């Protein structure tokens, strides 16, 4: 990315001018406003897409109804009629909101992992966290303790992350390429484990279920899924975004971060654990959806730079919008058949992955 040409600001002018101009702070306000508006519009429109004739305003009418009902001022009969209201409130809205929360969370997780590991290819999917979380989730479902689903997904994500980074480290200095290779090994093992557990336990056709864990699916998302994913994103995502400046300090490496007063080891493990917790919560409701954490943060960096206090909120908003539309495509393009949403994100994300590799070909030493 090239910055605008030098503006010819002299040090003396710089001191006199508004400091934010002098230091060239990029403006994020407009981007945040646009991204928020785009997300709201996307959520509204996405709910209307599909069989059943719904207008954007109907979505808000249904929401208003249910909010009124919560407040105890409901008039009884839904304005849209019971059937259409049910489609909006019970089926589509929770699914779209879950897609938004999962997209936001995956984008945050990817951006934080890239910052902490100084690895442009870091992403919860590529490093095996998502597969580990899937395996954990499937294991407790088979054991019949579905209540523990998010916990098991978290444990799976942590173990997979530990295995991937441990393996990468034991191969020598942790480099992006080694980390991705180690992540690949862990992801393949966990995916095979997930498939096997479902195959072994399922009585009928297990393939649909296997696919929805391995490639991700939001087909079953109802309000509990919204609560888990949105809650995780709001609590953990906000916590990570507030640590944005600490994340920035990692830009020049561990030594530089330590010299800036950051407790490097502790910060890294605490934050990676939070990322694993977030990934676990998301995978528990959606299966493993790839590439969201890779595409969005890199795109957003091109717009607003690499400062995490701007990068994380904007990645979250764009990631949410991205997955809302990816899931809308997944459920409508081959109607009435559903495509696992991970197939859509992989079609869009794999070229970005290839582009990142290609961009860094000159810095092959960094990757090897």
């Amino acid at each position, binding site marked *: 990315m090239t910055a605008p040409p030098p503006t010819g600001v002299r040090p003396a002018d710089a001191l006199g001018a508004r400091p934010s101009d002098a230091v060239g702070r990029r403006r994020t306000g407009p981007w945040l406003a646009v991204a928020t508006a785009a997300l709201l519009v996307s959520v509204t429109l996405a709910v209307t897409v599909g069989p059943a004739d719904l207008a954007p305003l109907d979505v808000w009418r249904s929401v208003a109804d249910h909010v009124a009902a919560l407040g105890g001022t409901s008039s009884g009969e839904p304005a849209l009629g019971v059937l259409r209201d049910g489609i909006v409130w019970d089926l589509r809205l929770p699914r779209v909101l879950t897609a938004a929360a999962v997209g936001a969370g995956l984008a945050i997780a990817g951006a934080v992992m890239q910052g902490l590991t100084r690895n442009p290819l870091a992403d919860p999917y590529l490093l095996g966290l998502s597969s580990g979380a899937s395996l954990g989730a499937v294991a407790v479902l088979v054991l019949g303790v579905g209540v523990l689903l998010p916990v098991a997904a978290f444990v799976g994500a942590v173990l997979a992350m530990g295995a991937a980074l441990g393996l990468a480290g034991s191969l020598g200095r942790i480099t992006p390429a080694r980390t991705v290779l180690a992540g690949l090994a862990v992801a393949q093992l966990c995916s095979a484990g997930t498939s096997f557990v479902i195959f072994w336990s399922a009585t009928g056709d297990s393939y649909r279920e296997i696919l929805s864990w391995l490639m991700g699916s939001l087909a079953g998302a109802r309000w509990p899924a919204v609560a888990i994913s949105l809650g995780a994103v709001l609590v953990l995502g906000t916590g990570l975004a507030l640590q944005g400046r600490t994340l920035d300090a990692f830009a020049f490496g561990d030594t530089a971060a330590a010299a800036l*007063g950051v407790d490097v080891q502790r910060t890294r493990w605490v934050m990676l654990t939070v990322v694993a917790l977030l990934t676990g919560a998301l995978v528990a409701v959606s299966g493993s959806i790839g590439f969201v954490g890779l595409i969005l943060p890199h795109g957003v960096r091109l717009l607003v730079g690499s400062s995490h206090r701007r990068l994380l909120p904007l990645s979250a908003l764009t990631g949410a919008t991205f997955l809302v539309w990816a899931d809308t495509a997944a459920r409508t393009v081959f109607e009435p058949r559903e495509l696992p949403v991970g197939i859509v994100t992989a079609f869009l994300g794999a070229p970005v992955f290839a582009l990142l590799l290609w961009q860094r070909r000159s810095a092959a030493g960094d990757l090897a």
Partner: protein
Amino acid sequence: MSLRVDGVRWTVAQRAVLDGVTATAPGGRLTGLLGPNGAGKSSLLRAVAGVLAPEAGTFTLDAVDLAGLPRRERARRIALVEQEAAASVPLTVAEAVLIGRTPHASRWGGHTTADDAAVASAIAEAGVGDLAQRSLGTLSGGERQRAHLARALAQDPQLLLLDEPTNHLDVHARIELLDLLGRLTDRGVTVVAALHDLNLAASACDHLILLDRGRVAAEGTVDEVLRPEVLEPVYRVRCHLLSHPVTGRPVLTFS
């Protein structure tokens, strides 16, 4: 703000990288840290900055024991510019300099006006005002070194540590950097720079510390340290001492 290093020992894989280093860097002066490759220069700088924790030894900066300070507090007093610090993500000079404010940042807060003012003055002092909006990756070696220096200055340090700051710089950039360091010491900042170029050390430094295999081989003024009988056993070369025709400072040739 003089720095006192006392009995510092740091061992890696049973090899003493720092083997009881005791030395002083006088306040508001440029101290050159000399020694062949592997003498322990970088390790000593990192130990002072608190990046690595030695097994033994104390560091005192103006009578304050650094070991007793929290990390952030230490980072507000000491800045370190590494030899090759490449950014993992695209950053402009201004963004890189803002990262230097990390130890001053409020725990949860965004950027304060104090941050903005410190960044602006660090950019001005390091002479990178024209480059503020440029991406670090597009800068020349000398420009990048000044940008890193601006980042360190944004920390508002009393002690500035530089690891081989003149490596890969052409003659002009080298002189420019030394001028900048001179202005810093004039306003009271204590500067310690690890240097390979002995003639550069001879022309610019106020005080020298010569390390050899983790020990202090010599310490003192330029005239005390840059003598053939001191340098020859450490660098294992033949060394001839001349006098600079203009400044009268020592000039060394090697064979």
